[in-house]
Every structure is written in structure tokens, then in C-alpha cells.
């Protein structure tokens, strides 16, 4: 390499390393300031990054961060600093005392994005910590804030409903969400699901219990009357084989297709087989079309109740309902 080329390479190297050595601290300074919840220092450092690192990925980051800070600069960044401090407080340290104190700070904040975002953060913690009426008050303040966006307002409405439901007033929560027309969203669906499960469970238990008791009683009567012949007729090998195949087929398919689903299908199959076996022997003790129809109808209800329970147990109903 000629001396000229070497000095040129050296100059180039100095230029490259020099500029990154200057910019690297600015970026690190900015990130450290963000971590330390010091938005004013972060803003100054990002401005330095944007100026020095034109065209780099750091410059793109600096632009993003500067826009973000500018949108939250009310009160000379002091409200933002307190929100950032609150948000980085570890979950276990965000106790009722800490959250209540911050809620107080939030209500004294000047109007702006930070106040809206602070309410969303603190109200969620108050709700999690069981300070239901305080949480509800913060959500309601959010709803009165003209700067809250549509998403934030929906979040606040959901929050009020969750506070009501946590306090035991499930139907009040649903009414609240339905007040302004058709309601939707995760909270609404979850509340409706809970109510449906609570209301339907006693009916399912009653249908299943009644059917099992009745078919056991009738089955015993059929056995007492007809003895082994009745059992052989009710559970003839072909019928039993067909029932086993109908019940186990899906379980086998499930096990082959997705092991995770096999337990659910096995529970369904075993339950279905037992209910069917009970019904077929009970049916021999019932004479007349009306009686058999009634027993069949009850059997259908019992099967539905069984399916309902198995699906509830599998947890999969969360996506169905």
C-alpha cells in the first residue's frame, strides 16, 4: 500500500470510528435517559443522534423518539417523567399505596396525552389490586377527558364494567356496556361467557343427574324383569361394537391428528358410551311411544350437558362463546 493510500485509509478510518464514537454515546445516553425516566435528557440526546447520524438506523430511531416525546411534552415533560417512572416500577412494587399516590398525581397533571395514558396505566393497576371504586373513578374521569381517543374511551368503559363485575354486579356490568347500543369486545364477551356458564351449569347438572338416576332405576328394573337376556339384548355385540366405534373413532382421529385434543375427545367418548349404555338398558323398561320419546329427549339433553361440561373443562369454550 502506498503511503498516500495508507494515510487516506487512516483518515477514512478516523472519520468512520470518530463519527460513530461521537454518536454511540449520544444514543446510549438517550437510552439511558429513557431507562432513568428522564425525558428531557432523552430529548437532548436524541436530537444529538439525529443531527450526527443522518441516514443511519439510529437516526430513524431518533426521529421516532423525538416525535413521541413531542406529543407528550406538556408541563415541560414533568408529567411524562412521572408516568415513565410509574410504568417502570416493577409489578410487585406497584402496590395500592403506590398506585393511589400516582392516581393523585395524575389528576393534578395538565390536560394532554400523558394524563390520558397515565389514567389507563394506574386504573388498570387499581383494578388488579382490588381498589374497585377508585379504579372506577379513574376510568370515569378518563371518559370525561376530551383528549381520550376512541380506543382509550372503550378501554375506560371496559374498565368500569370490569370494576362492576369484580364487585359482584355482573348484570350491572353488562347493562353498562350495552347502554350505548350493541356492545362488543373482549371484556363484553368474557362477561357474557361468565354469565352463560354460571346460568347454564345448574341446568346441565340437573339434566345429567336426572337422566343418570332415572336410567339407572329403569335399567335395574329391566334387569330384574328380564335378567341376563335383557342385558344381552340391550348390549348385543354388534350394537356394542357400533357404539364403541362411534365413540372411539373421533378419539382415535384426535389422537392421531393432535395429541393435545385427545383428552377432550376421550372424555367425551367415555361419557357418551356410558350414557348410551344406560339409555339402551333403561329403554327396555319403558313401554309405549310417549315414555320412550320422553326418555330419548332426556338422553339428548344429558348428552348435550356432558358435551358442555367437557368443553368447559377443556377451556376451549373461551373461543366458542
Amino acid at each position: 500500500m502506498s503511503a498516500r493510500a495508507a494515510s487516506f485509509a487512516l483518515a477514512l478510518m478516523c472519520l468512520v470510528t470518530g463519527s460513530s464514537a461521537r454518536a454511540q454515546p449520544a444514543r446510549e445516553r438517550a437510552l439511558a435517559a429513557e431507562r432513568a425516566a428522564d425525558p428531557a435528557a432523552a430529548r437532548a440526546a436524541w436530537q444529538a443522534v439525529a443531527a450526527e447520524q443522518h441516514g443511519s438506523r439510529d437516526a430513524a430511531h431518533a426521529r421516532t423518539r423525538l416525535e413521541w416525546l413531542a406529543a407528550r411534552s406538556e408541563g415541560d415533560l414533568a408529567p411524562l417523567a412521572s408516568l415513565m417512572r410509574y410504568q417502570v416500577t416493577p409489578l410487585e412494587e406497584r402496590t395500592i399505596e403506590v398506585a393511589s399516590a400516582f392516581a393523585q398525581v395524575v389528576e393534578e397533571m395538565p390536560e394532554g396525552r400523558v394524563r390520558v395514558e397515565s389514567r389507563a396505566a394506574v386504573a388498570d393497576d387499581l383494578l388488579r389490586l382490588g381498589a374497585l371504586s377508585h379504579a372506577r373513578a379513574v376510568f370515569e374521569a378518563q371518559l370525561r377527558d376530551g383528549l381520550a381517543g376512541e380506543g382509550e374511551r372503550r378501554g375506560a368503559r371496559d374498565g368500569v364494567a370490569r370494576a362492576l363485575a369484580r364487585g359482584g354486579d355482573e348484570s350491572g356490568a353488562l347493562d353498562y356496556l350495552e347502554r350505548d347500543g350493541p356492545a362488543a369486545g373482549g371484556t363484553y364477551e368474557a362477561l357474557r361467557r361468565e354469565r352463560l356458564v354460571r346460568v347454564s351449569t345448574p341446568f346441565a347438572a340437573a339434566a345429567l343427574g336426572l337422566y343418570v338416576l332415572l336410567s339407572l332405576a329403569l335399567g335395574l328394573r329391566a334387569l330384574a324383569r328380564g335378567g341376563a337376556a335383557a342385558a344381552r339384548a340391550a348390549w348385543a355385540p354388534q350394537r356394542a361394537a357400533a357404539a364403541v366405534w362411534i365413540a372411539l373413532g373421533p378419539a382415535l382421529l384426535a389422537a392421531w391428528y393432535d395429541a393435545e385434543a385427545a383428552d377432550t375427545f376421550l372424555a367425551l367418548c367415555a361419557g357418551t358410551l356410558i350414557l348410551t349404555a344406560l339409555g339402551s338398558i333403561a329403554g327396555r323398561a319403558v313401554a309405549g311411544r310417549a315414555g320412550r320419546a320422553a326418555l330419548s329427549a332426556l338422553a339428548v339433553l344429558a348428552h348435550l350437558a356432558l358435551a358442555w361440561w367437557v368443553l368447559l373443562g377443556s377451556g376451549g369454550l373461551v373461543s366458542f362463546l
Partner: protein
Amino acid sequence: MVDKHIGRTLAFAAFLVLGCQETGLVEEDAGGPPPADGAAPSDAGAPVEAMHSYTPAGCGYSVTTPPVTEAGASEDVFGPSPSADHIHVSWAGPSHSSFAVNWRSDTGTLASRVLYSTDRAALSAADGSGGAVFEQLGHHMLFRDLARRTTRVHEAHVCGLSPSTEYFYRLGGPGHWSAVFSTATAPSPGASDAFTFAVTGDSRGNEEQAWAISQRRVRDALADFELFSGDAVILGTAQDQWDDFWSADDGAGFDVQQLLSSTPLMMVNGNHDALAVNFVAQTAFAQDTFMNERAQGEEWYSFDYGNAHFVMLDDNDRELWGTSEAMWLEQDLSAAEANPAVEWIFVTHHRPFYTCMSTHSPDTSLRAAWQEIFDRHHVDVVFTGHNHVYERSRPIRGLSGGQGVIAAEGLNGAPVITGGTASGTVYLVAAGVGAPLYEVSTSCATTYSARAERTYVTVRVNGRELQVTVRNAMTDSMVDQFGWTKG
């Protein structure tokens, strides 16, 4: 476990009604003869099926489309409203020297060009290449979804770029260029430059606009790229759901394209995505086809960023995960471990094999197939979803009777580092930016912490130092934070 069956049952019904090709359930045999360019001649009544294969100029790799209704090279043909939307970037080649971009247009537009430059002003003024502005030609695809609705998407691969540089780009063709977007290349391989990546998953359903909100947070957290652990949509063959995924907004002026047009989104297949043609046609990942691998080699892949290696796996293919995928995984991780430029190894897949009392129980057969490979190659963190909760395992290394063995544990559940190696792998479940929240428990021995919250994860890698921050996507409050330094 039933939720997945809705998708599967519907997809199966669609399969019966429409045939495999329309649902995207069946991919072509990846080992078959190279496909011909352009549309294959069709018999009357038979579904038209086309594939297109080419090597993008300057890229050292070839690109093959999935079988679709139409596929071909960019042509300067424009429909009545040719403007690009659903713009998102990813890497199919080296992250420090390339990027891939996908977008949608009206069905009549075939122009699939990218203009790019490091000079924003020059690019804004340009109608073609010249000076500081360069051009790359991509390809277009037309596919039909479950509802037989047609969608035209485009894809282009830009290569030969400089590391750690922001590139501005526009999409379309002469006279019809999009607005200016930008993305940035990764640092040189092995560089110890600090970087941040985000992890999200299970956006399906987009409840509470959590998908868009999480993406706004990811943008504001300055992520250089994002990993997505699967289940973008409820039904992978329903294009309207993908349309929502690529265009969701938070109701306050942010739409996900603002992030995804600049921050590469690296995805794995979830059980709901079903590796549908929609998924494959709208994303671009490395086509490193391995034995029996589907989706033209995009079913599983890996990439490097700075001093880290990322492995993206498909855990929905029971036939393959313990056979060819495990073989590929072993090879890929061996190479990564032997590569002196790699300090960190992160794995992403969909179904957790460490999760506690949530809707889906841990997948023990997956654990049996993969954990030993993760252990041997000292994977640092595994990211999963499927259970819509947040969960962090204790460091785990080794199996005893099929159960994970808890390794030496340092401060705050972090692994202990000896000679630069961590005592165990930390397994995260962090998903639910849109899917219904599930319940979870901390009562399992392998669980360090668990919360039923919608979270997004950011991971800061700074040389040999790692910091993982988990925040609530809705409130941005801290949910968990941990990390370690490798000596």
C-alpha cells in the same frame, strides 16, 4: 384446545368443498421439478395453478412463489387503483445486506418494482433509477381465498446493501410510485453493536385493538425487528382477516403499516395460520428448503442479526417436527454454535412445551423432539405463544422422565453463567395481542412467573449483555424484566 379446531374444522370443511389447492392446506412437493414461469395452461374447469421462480438481481438466492392462480415477474401493467398497501418488510437473505418487501395492490396491477436509495430527497423526486436511486424488480401473485375472493400481492428482494444503514424505498412502477418508506439493515455479522428486537404473538381476533396498540408500542420501543410467534389470524385461509392484520389501526392515527413498512416482521406458523397460501404468499422468509419442508422452504428458517442467531420453527407438522425438522435444527444450531460471530441463540415457535395450567397443556412430544437439541447447543431463550398469557420458566437444562430439569438459577430467575455459558434455557410464553386472554398459574415447578396479561416483549442485546423487558401492551406498564451477562 377447541379453539384451534374451529379453524381446523372450517379449513377441513373448506378442503372438502373447494379442494386442497384453494385452501392452501396442501403445498406442492418441495422436492419436485423446478416450476415453470408464468401461469400453467389450464384445462377447462380445472383450477389455474401457477408458480414463478427467479433469482432477484444481486441476490445470491432464488425465490419461488407458492402455487397460486397467477404468478409472474413484474410487468408495467397498472389497474385502475394501483396504489400499494399492506406494506411490510422482512429478511429472506442476510439481514445486514438485504431486505424483502411485500405489498398488495388492486388485482389488475402487475408492476412490482422497488426504487430505493439512502438519499430520501433524491428518491422522492425520482421516477426511475439513476444517480443515487436504484431499482429492483420483484414479482406478483394472484391468489384466491376461502371465500373465492382474489387478492393481488407483490414481493421484491433488495440485496447488496451496506450494513447499519437506513434505506428509503418506494413501491409500484413508473408514474405510480408509492409514498417514501424506510427500513434499516442490520450491523455486520458478529458486530457487537447493541440492538433491540420485539416479540409478539396471537393477534388473532384483534380484541381491544391490541394488535395495533402493541405494534405502536413496538415502534416506540425502537425495535430493530420483531419476532411473531404465530396465530396472526383465526383462519389462515380467510383473506379478510389477513387484510385486517396488515392494516389494523389503534383508532388514534397509528396503523401497523407505520411499523411493519420499516421494521422486519419475522413470523412462524401458528396452528390457526395453517401455513395457508395467504400466509406464504404475503410473507418472505429464507427459502432454505430441507427434506420435505413445505412452503417453498419457508416453513422453518433461521437468520442472524449482529451477534445473535434466530431460529424460527414450525411446530404444527407432527410428521416432520421430530424427523426432518429436527435434523435441520441440529444442523442449523451446530453451525450457529461453531460460528464465532454468534453469541446468542434465540428460538421462536408457536406451542409452548413449558406452560402451567393454562388452556393448552405443554406439548410433551414436542419437548421430547426438540429440547435435547436446544440443550446441546445452549439456546438462550425460546419464545412461544398459543396460550394467550405471559409466562417465564426457570432456566431448564435436561430432561428426567420427560420433565424438564431446573438448572442453577441466579438473581431473579436468570441462569447462572459459567465460562460464558448459561446454566439453562429460559422458555417464554408471551402472546395474546388480540386473542382472548387465558388463565395461567405459577404452581408448576418449572414456572418462574406468570400473568394473564396481553404483553409485548422487547429484548435488548448489547454485546454479551441481555435484557428482556415485558410490558403490558394496553398500559405499557412493566410486567417482568430479567437478563444476564455472559461473562
